[in-house]
């Protein structure tokens, strides 16, 4: 819904901008700008060094240690994995610390949500929002529904080691990617379907091996990134029809991460060469034609690609990089269809492994 609204606002903006470019008094208009880019750094496992960084694309200012500064030096915890903005709040899933932090847009903690499984604390992995709730997967094999008013969490069992989760906007279901990630090399190949109210399992969809994350292109088309088994079984891109739950596979794409903008998607693809040296490619993907159009940037320009995100308001692609040793870098790339991409900014993300980016927009009326 949110993206729908943004799209509509963008169109309005373009139309109104064209109609009101004089500086005369009495003119009016609306502009939407990306005010803050929140960058979640995962840190290194067992190092308690997850941290939040905020980048302002209009001033290029980068604020690091945002979480600890907003919370009296308190640490965000160990191995944060996902973050979403829902309304005026940020939800941060910190896997190692087994906590979902709810903060305001300054990073100040409002609530600390913990859930328990049979005995241990549950470790949150991915989140999605819809129907006034935030839904979360826990690696111990649970899906949770967080009430955004009371912050109570209700859980239900899923298959082993769920990762990605998405709320189907037109059919109001939950898709949960089941990986069985602790059972190498026998990863799972299914998505489980849950109802959003009672969290009841209502179906199962067979997918490619090791399904990881879901991505919307518009409100209808849902892409699923599957990682394969890191061996003979390759990574695959699939499309799930939210009405029929039918799955189709896009040939010739081996995605690791994906980001979607208004007109294009961007796919980060991590592979090995013949000497087992890692290679990263950044593809421009046309989701109307379901084909790769070309490369956004090269590995020489952006080495050690780790995560990719798109800001459809500004037309920027954000690529987070990591060598897993040093602080990550964030590359800001301006891209318009059929034009060469341009790296317009690069900055240190203030911590290791920039794993997630979300945007906070300002709507200005004048």
């Amino acid at each position: 819904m949110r993206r729908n609204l943004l799209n509509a606002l963008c169109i309005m903006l373009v139309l109104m901008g064209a109609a009101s470019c004089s500086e005369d008094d009495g003119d009016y208009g609306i502009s939407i700008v990306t005010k803050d880019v929140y960058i979640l750094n995962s840190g290194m496992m067992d190092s308690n060094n997850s941290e939040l960084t905020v980048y302002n694309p209009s001033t290029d200012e980068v604020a690091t240690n945002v979480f600890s500064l907003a919370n009296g030096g308190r640490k965000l915890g160990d191995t944060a994995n996902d973050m979403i903005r829902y309304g005026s709040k940020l939800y941060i899933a910190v896997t190692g610390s087994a906590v979902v932090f709810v903060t305001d847009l300054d990073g100040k903690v409002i609530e600390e949500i913990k859930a328990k499984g049979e005995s241990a604390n549950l470790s949150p992995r991915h989140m999605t929002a819809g129907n006034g709730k935030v839904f979360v997967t826990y690696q111990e094999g649970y899906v949770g529904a967080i009430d955004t008013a009371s912050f109570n969490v209700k859980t239900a069992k899923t298959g082993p080691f769920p990762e990605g989760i998405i709320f189907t906007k037109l059919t109001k279901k939950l898709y949960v990617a089941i990986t069985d990630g602790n059972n190498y090399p026998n990863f799972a190949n299914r998505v489980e379907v849950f109802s959003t109210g009672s969290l009841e399992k209502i179906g199962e969809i067979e997918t490619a091996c090791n399904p990881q994350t879901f991505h919307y292109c518009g409100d209808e088309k849902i892409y699923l990134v599957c990682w394969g088994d890191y061996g003979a079984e390759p990574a695959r891109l699939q499309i799930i029809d939210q009405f029929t739950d039918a799955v189709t596979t896009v040939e010739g794409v081996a995605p690791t991460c994906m980001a979607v903008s208004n007109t294009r998607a961007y796919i980060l693809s991590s592979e090995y060469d013949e000497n087992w040296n890692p290679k990263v490619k950044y593809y421009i993907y046309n989701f109307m034609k379901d084909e790769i159009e070309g490369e956004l940037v090269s590995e020489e320009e952006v080495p050690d690609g780790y995560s990719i995100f798109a800001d459809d308001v500004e037309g920027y692609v954000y690529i987070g990089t990591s060598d897993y040793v040093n602080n990550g870098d964030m590359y800001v790339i301006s891209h318009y269809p059929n034009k060469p991409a341009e790296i317009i900014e690069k900055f240190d993300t203030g911590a290791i492994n920039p794993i997630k980016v979300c945007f906070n927009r300002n709507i200005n009326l004048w």
Partner: protein
Amino acid sequence: MQFKDLSGVRIGAFCLLYVFIHVFCTVDANGQNVVSVQQKEEMADTLASAVVTAKAAPSPTRQSAPLQVMQQKDFAALGVKELHEAVKTFSGVQIKDYGGIGGVKTVSVRSLGTQHTAISYDGVTVSNAQSGQVDIGRFNLENVEMITLSIGQVEDIFQTARMYASAGVLNIRTTRPQFNGSNTNIGASMRVASFGTYNPAAYWQQKLGKKWVVAVNADWLKSDGEYPYTLKNGSTSTREKRFNSDVNTIRAEANLYGSLRSGGELTFKGNWMSSQRGLPGSVIYYNQDARERLWDEAGFVQGQYSKRLSDKMELKGQLKYNYAWNKYMDEDESYHGGVRTDYFTQKEIYGSISAKYTPATHLGIVLSQDIFRNTLDASYVNFVYPERFTSLTALAARYDNGRINATASLLSTYITEELRSGAAAPDRFRLSPSVSVSYKPFAGKNLRIRASWQDIFRTPTFNDLYYERVGNSALKPEKAGQVNVGITYREAFEGVLDEISLQADAFYNKVEDKIVALPTLFVWRMYNVGEVEIEGADINLGASFSFGAGTRVKVQGNYSYQKAIDITDPKGKNYKHQIPYTPLHSGNVTVSILNRWANLGYVMSVTGDRYALSQNIRSNLMPGYMEHSVSVGKEFGIHGSGDRNFSWGIQVECQNITDEQYDVIQYYPMPGRSLRVTLKFEM
């Protein structure tokens, strides 16, 4: 032998070689025609040290490469009971300590990485082909006579070839029974310590006729390990407890010593350890849930035989079979059935034969050949079951005329591996030379100048090569070059000051093709990419004093400077940054006071600031710390009937007396102040 990129090392090495050859030839040419009184004394000194049995402690100041020694009497005087506590007082050493009694403790010298330091137990290397790391936490000092740490060159060339195969060797030598009149010695001790720790131990030693001695010892260590620590998070500070940190270990050893006079010397040893422990893991904010456990069953049998064939020829042989089984278990709902269990079994068969030829008084030549086979079984799916054959040949020569001593050695390594499935790592062959020399410039002064050079490597471990997904069978060995120059000085005096000693060394090390884990998105793999350059200095100072009435005071201090920088990638943000867990400055002081009333010991160690991760930034900084421990002990002798003497003793130690809260490994908190009491009875 690969010299490239080590040009500095190469020049140094050739200089040393030149000195060595020069000295060698000069002496050969001059013979021993002109011998001064001073030289005679020195010769006597040298001969004395050669004739004395293997029990004599080597003199660190006479060594051509750095050597540190700690003996049983020092352990007692300082109240150190565990191996890692003793090693901690050495310079140039880092101990990675994951905290508590059950926490893994590994040792590395001069920033070269744990796998470059060998642990030898009564002359035979303790191996771990799976990880390359030996947990020194499994050794206590109950039955140990002496430990030595040599860097860059073995202290005694008459060794197995394997002892030449590491940058540093930590040598543990157990006590050989001594009988004063009676044919039986028995002893028992009980140790009680903080955090629910109990450690009873006993030994029995028996003379069997004139030629044989049997000795058995065993101990049981049980600890809750639930120690408190302070956890800081921003402005809040909470008092927490370490859970799942319990240990239950039984260790037993039997030795059979045979002195067959002209038939040679024979010893057999059997050792077993059975242990179960909880792994508390790192402290994770907001989630203190640890359910990992580890079981170990490990043992070895070894036989050693040595014989002097003639005045010029000595022979030594060893055989060993080593078995190590462990079981790792983790409870977590993300595993099928809520639990993951892995089993590992390592086996080693080892044989070594060494011959020492002494063609002239001052010269010894040793040839050693070792052959061993290592296997690893693991319960992983698709595991490859590696089998490794290693052949090591070492040729070493030592010249020592009192004024000058020099050692040169060449180690040849050949390794071949087989797998049950898949492609094994290619065969490896390497030559590793090492040279060292010590020179006494002034005849009347015990001042020596020394220099050493070693080109060594470590073989990739089974984990490096074949661990599921992560292993990379294309790995090359990790190379390490070491250069050391130093001075040593020792002087004995009459009066209150008995003796002073000094060892000061500067060193340069370089690690190339360092084996590190590197990820490509979410999947890790091992690569030969790291490069580290290490410059440093170690200074050891010692003094002992005698006051009237049997009061002796021994003070030792050492300081280490280590600049160990990562030079892997000039574009990396950590380029030329100090490598993790390596303080620039560290040192320690030990004081022991022996007197009529009681023995007092004090150990202080200081570690400077370190970084937990590669980048030298504030968020990775771990502040330095200072730890103080004190001990007081007293032995009482009771004369029994006939030849039998009874003695008993009590020792009390307070470790970390200032209750310093610190981590050696980040988020593995160390125990605060703790108490340990030992009662001992011997007859």
